[in-house]
């Protein structure tokens, strides 16, 4: 284990950034997100970012390939580019856990999404454990330890006036070795953090929900939803996207862009039929996708308990309260 004095954090990031591009959690123009490190950036280390770091691996808008057309002829050229290695510094354990699900979606079941894969392979994750979760956090209800991220390359946690760092993968060890000049050897174990105060009952939830598709409770749950995309766009595990064209004259780009199951257009078919015509079906899809369909398909959590949707839903349609309400249904 290594330690880093808090006073030296800026120098540590600067040195690391001179070797490899580093993304850090910052507050910028009134909103928090991950952005490239610079000396004058405003680091946010006391809470998680509103924009999830999934954007570094799966951006909201991403070009897939370009094309040229000339009368009847056409050609295409892939725009998939393997980035230079980069470091994501300060990802919280919930968000690191979300990468597990994104990996399952983008890299398994017969097809690998090359655009995601190239970024995922080049990204080194330094997770920052949470000594004290926020009141909207409930990751430990899903089995995530707020102070540990097993999938991170390096686990880091605050301890009084310093940070303690432990490499968890080969890439992590190499990075720490490269930065050894900034670090001090330290004995002992990484400290544990406090548990979350917000809780949901997780065990058996998937099985409990399986027969609830037709339950009238969905008509109640959906009432206050305004069908905006806030929850889905801020969610670290939501991955749905649309594929679109941007044509300018004889050339153009095929790109993908986040989409949301909250929008009526999402499932609207060319002939006019919509299998999810009202907000009841759309709200049900969002919650069952997280809580039943993803666990069924990937034997994996569909929610990591980061609490962003609780924090930012304009009408406080809170997933933990929805889960409690669903548990009450016989």
């Amino acid at each position, binding site marked *: 284990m290594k330690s880093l004095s808090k006073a030296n954090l800026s120098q540590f990031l600067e040195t690391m950034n001179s070797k490899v591009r580093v993304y850090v959690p910052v507050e910028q*123009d*009134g*909103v928090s997100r991950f952005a490239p490190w610079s000396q004058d950036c405003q680091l946010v280390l006391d809470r998680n970012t*509103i*924009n999830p770091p999934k954007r570094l691996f799966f951006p*909201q*808008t991403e070009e897939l390939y370009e094309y040229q057309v000339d009368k009847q002829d056409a050609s295409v050229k892939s725009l998939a580019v393997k980035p230079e290695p980069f470091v994501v510094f300060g990802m919280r354990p919930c968000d690191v856990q979300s990468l597990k699900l994104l990996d399952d979606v983008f890299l398994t079941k017969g097809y690998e999404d090359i655009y995601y894969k190239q970024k995922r392979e080049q990204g080194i994750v330094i997770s920052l454990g949470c000594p004290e979760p926020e*009141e*909207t956090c409930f990751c430990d209800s899903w089995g995530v330890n707020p102070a540990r991220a097993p999938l991170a390359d390096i686990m880091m946690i605050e301890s009084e006036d310093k940070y303690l760092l432990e490499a968890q993968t080969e890439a992590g060890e190499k990075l720490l070795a490269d930065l050894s000049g900034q670090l001090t050897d330290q004995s002992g174990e990484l400290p544990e953090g406090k548990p979350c105060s*917000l809780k949901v009952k997780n065990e058996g939830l998937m099985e409990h929900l399986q027969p609830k598709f037709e339950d009238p409770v969905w008509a*109640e749950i959906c*009432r*206050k939803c*305004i*069908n*905006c*995309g*806030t929850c*889905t*766009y*801020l969610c670290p595990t939501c991955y749905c996207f*649309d594929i*679109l*064209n*941007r044509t300018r004259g004889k050339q153009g780009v095929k*790109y993908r*862009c*986040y*989409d*949301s199951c909250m*929008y*009526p*257009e999402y499932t609207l078919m060319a002939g006019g039929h919509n299998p999810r015509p009202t*907000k009841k079906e759309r709200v049900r899809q969002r919650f069952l996708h997280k809580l039943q369909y993803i666990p069924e398909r990937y034997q994996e959590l569909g929610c990591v308990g980061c609490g962003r949707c*609780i924090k*930012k839903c*304009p*009408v*406080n*349609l*809170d997933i*933990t*309260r929805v889960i409690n309400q669903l548990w009450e249904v016989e």
Partner: protein
Amino acid sequence: MNAQTAKIREIAKELLEKQEVQMVIGWEKGTFFYNSTPVFITKPEDVERLIWDEYCAVNLAKLLMDYRHVEGKVALFVKGCDARGINRLIQDKVIDRGKTYLIGLPCPGMKDAGKAAELGKDKAGEAPLEAKCLRCTHPNPVVYDVLVGEEVPVTGKEDRFARIADLEKMSPDEKFEYWSKQYDKCIRCYACRNVCPACNCRECVFDQGQTWLERAVERGGNQFYGLVRAFHVAGRCIECGECERACPMDIPIMDLHHKIAKDINELFGDYEAGLDPEGPLPLGMYKTEDPEEFM
């Protein structure tokens, strides 16, 4: 429990028991002390869920749109801004006043939930009012069937155009830089549109595939979205500030709406939307003496 909460429950219970309405839309306590969230009461025994406190910021008017085609009346609690939202929907021929029962609540202003969360429960009293409440000109409902409590004065509030005075002083380049920074944050979740009582089109232009706007989230498209929405609600915006409150990226959307409202006042005389559903809309009529500096 405050006296008004007891009173609103009593009113709701009576309306439901006498079957004068089939549903009452109000607020209930949400996850944390600073969350008061919409609730839909259909059974008299459920009225105990209703509350009225300093966090009932959500404008309920828009939620009525889901019930415009149902049989029978729906009751709704209205603050000043909710009431103006109702007038908006009536004037836009979206809802039928005869099918609504409005319970008016004079509003002392709602606390800024985000600030209250930061301060914690014990110090929440020190939290400032929501930005939208600081600039409110009509805290008392402008339309209602019954009023609960005494009307409140418009006190201690900011001039609603104060914030844009600074923006107006900027050069065009500075303005562009400022708004680019703001709309570069936009994630196009459409929360601002979906909470807005003036955004009541049957089909929004932004939901028509890529006919008018590409889905790519980028500077030009984001600004186009913000501007088009601002102009679509020009002269109809009731200044409830829900767009800005709902925005997860903290974009000062009301500055656009206030700027347009101010310009309308200067060009066509003082006007506030949502006060009179019968009156003419400043941008919906033509007078020969209208200024036409662009001609």
